[in-house]
Each structure stands twice: as structure tokens, then as C-alpha cells.
């Protein structure tokens, strides 16, 4: 089956920054992404768990974008402008997609 090269960018970021990040993505013309809940984790700022939390100040989300390779740099720059001072991990990996016309 015919597949096409693409990049998969996964950004783990604090829930209160979610809207700012997706706005930055929209502005960078990245209109395809999915958001998954992160229910706990650990990092330089220690462990945390969403269990029982009542505000959103404490949670994190993972935003996944699959994009054409040539759009990667633009995306990373606009992501970086948001993530910069913030807690968060950005990882990029290669992938193949079906139906390239969608991206």
C-alpha cells in the first residue's frame, strides 16, 4: 500500500497552556492535531498525578501532530515560542502516512 513520508511531533505540556499551543499551531498553519490526556508523570519538577485534582493547573496533555516533513521547521519554531519557559517535552519522529493528500 502506498505510503508517504511524514513527521510525528508529540508535545507534552501543562494543561493551562493547551489553548495557547493550539493557537500557535493554527497560526503556523498546522491544522491537524490530536490531544490526549496525560494522567500522571515525572520530570525535573517531580512526580505528579491527576488523580482527584480539581483544578486544571496540575494536569498535562499530549498534543500529537502528523505533518509533511517540509512543514516541520515552521511548526517547531511556533511550538518553541509557546513551550520555551514552560514545562514540556517536544519529540519528533519519522513516520509514514496513508492518504498524503490529507496533510
Amino acid at each position: 500500500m502506498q505510503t508517504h513520508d511524514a513527521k510525528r511531533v508529540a508535545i507534552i505540556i501543562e494543561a493551562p497552556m493547551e489553548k495557547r499551543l493550539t493557537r500557535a499551531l493554527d497560526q503556523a498553519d498546522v491544522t491537524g492535531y490530536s490531544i490526549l490526556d496525560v494522567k500522571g508523570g515525572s520530570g525535573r519538577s517531580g512526580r505528579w498525578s491527576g488523580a482527584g485534582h480539581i483544578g486544571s493547573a496540575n494536569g498535562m496533555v499530549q498534543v500529537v501532530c502528523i505533518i509533511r516533513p517540509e512543514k516541520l521547521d515552521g511548526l517547531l519554531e511556533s511550538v518553541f515560542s509557546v513551550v520555551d519557559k514552560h514545562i514540556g517535552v517536544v519529540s519528533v519522529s519519522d513516520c509514514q502516512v496513508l492518504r498524503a493528500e490529507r496533510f
Partner: protein
Amino acid sequence: MDGILSLALANLTSPLILSFVLGFVAALARSDLTFPEAAAKALSLYLLFAIGFKGGVSVSDHGVDGSLGLALLAGVVLSFLLPIIGFPVLRTISGLDRTNAAVVAAHYGSISIVTFVAGTSVLESQGIASEGYMVAVAAAMEAPAILSALWLISRGEGDRRMDAELWREILLNGSIVLLIGSFFIGMITGQDGLREIESFIVSPFKGALCIFLLDMGLIAGRGLRGRGGGLSLGVVAFGIIMPLIGASLGAGTGVLLGLTTGGVMLMMVLCASASYIAVPAAMRVAVPEADAGIYLTLSLAITFPFNLALGLPIYLAVAKALTGA
């Protein structure tokens, strides 16, 4: 004195406090008892809706007079002021840097709605009335403190990070909107509306609050276990001193405004309590370099339990004494 003690004892052996203690102890003992996030969120929406609605109904009963406006104004001014008063105190006793100190102080200008709810619940079981519009004052006090914190930070650094978007987010955050909205619904529908939904928002209220406090105990206990050890003695001390400073200012303001005993007590509770929902969320965005471990833990694991267990009976006793009740 004797009154305070017996009140404190009655308070400490109420199902509300004991539920909190159960959660707290379970968390410290590392039990896996947890509350689903969605259920905790839903419960908090229920509490906000019920408390707002009941406040509105009570205003519709007694009518609105000038004192509502004055109380709102006083609340806003106090919310601005408290962080500015707390900041040098905190810097002195803890040695936190400017940014972290400002952010922590901001939490004490804002309010904890659950402490407020627990306060109204104590008043109810004692049959003491209070101004229904105190709910609106609570909502008004949520946000101004954030501005004070940013001003304190910018005096050192000369930058600001608040954009229009963040303001909108803060002022329209879910808790404020729900509280104010249900307050208006209660005001519009009055006793008729209350009668229709009474057996949903009045009768089961206290039991639901127990369950919520159980969860708060779990969160506070986990916070303390996770980060508690990292809080310096000075910071912890601030978490107990600052409520007392706030309560004193609240008491003075309440008496000046001519509030009832219940009103004075609730004003004290608002000033004494520290935010753990609205302010932390705003600070995560506006001041990401501040250490969330400090402000969340202090507010949730030190100040909240202190107010719940000891603060409420003290504030009530003082309010009674000041208003001659």
C-alpha cells in the same frame, strides 16, 4: 475562650472535618484510595452551583441595598491589598526569591471557595444567618490578587506577562462564571425556584461536601507527602500566619461595613483562605518559572486544613465577640 474551645471541638468532630482527616491520613499512609478526577470536578461544580444559587435566593428574599456594593468594593480592595501585605512578611520569614514570594502571596489575596462553603455550613448548623451576597463578594475576590502579584514581580524585573487573553481566561474561569451565574439564577427565581430544586441542592449538600472534603484530604495529604518535606519552616509558618492576618483585616472590614455576625465571619474566611484553583492556573501560564510545588502545597496542605480545623471556629468566635452576638 471556652467558647472557642468547645466550638473547635464540635468542629473537629463533625463529619465534615473527620472526612477531611480520613482522606489526609489515608494519603499519608500511602493508601491507593483515590477519587476519579471527573467525579471530583463534578462535585465541585455541584457545590458551586448550590452555594451560588442559595446566595442568590437569600438576596432575593432580603432585597439588594447599598451594602452589597460596598461589600463588593471592600472585597476587591482586600484582594488587591492582601498579597502586598503578605509579600514582605513572606520574604522576611522565608527568604523566598521575589518571584516565588509574589506568586505565593497572590494566593492569599484570592479565596478558597471550599473553605467558604465549609464556613457557611458551620454557620448553618449553628443557626446563624449571613448576607446572601457574600457569595458575590467571594467571586469578586478571586482575581484581583493576581494583578498585585504581577505588579510585585514587575517592580523587580520590569516586565509583564499578562495579555488580554489571560485576563479573559481568569475573569471567565469556570468557578467564577458558575458562582455568579447560579447566584443570578437564585436571585431571579427566588424561593419558588429554590422549592423546585431544594431536595437536590439543599438536603444532600452537607453529605456531598463530606465526600468532597475527603478528596481534598487525599490531595492535601499527597501534596504534603510529595513536596511537604521540601517546604521550609518559614514558608509553612507563613501558611498559618497569613490567614490570621487576613482574618483580622476581614474582621475589621466586616464590622466597618456593618455586616451581621455571619457576614463578618464569612468575610474573615474569605480573607483568610488561599486559592488553589484560579490563581495556580493563572500562575502556571503567567509565571511559569515559579515553583508550583511551593504554592500549591502551601495553599492546599497547610492553609486549607488549618482554616478548616482551627480557623473556622476561631473566626466564628471572633465574629460573635465583635458583633456582640
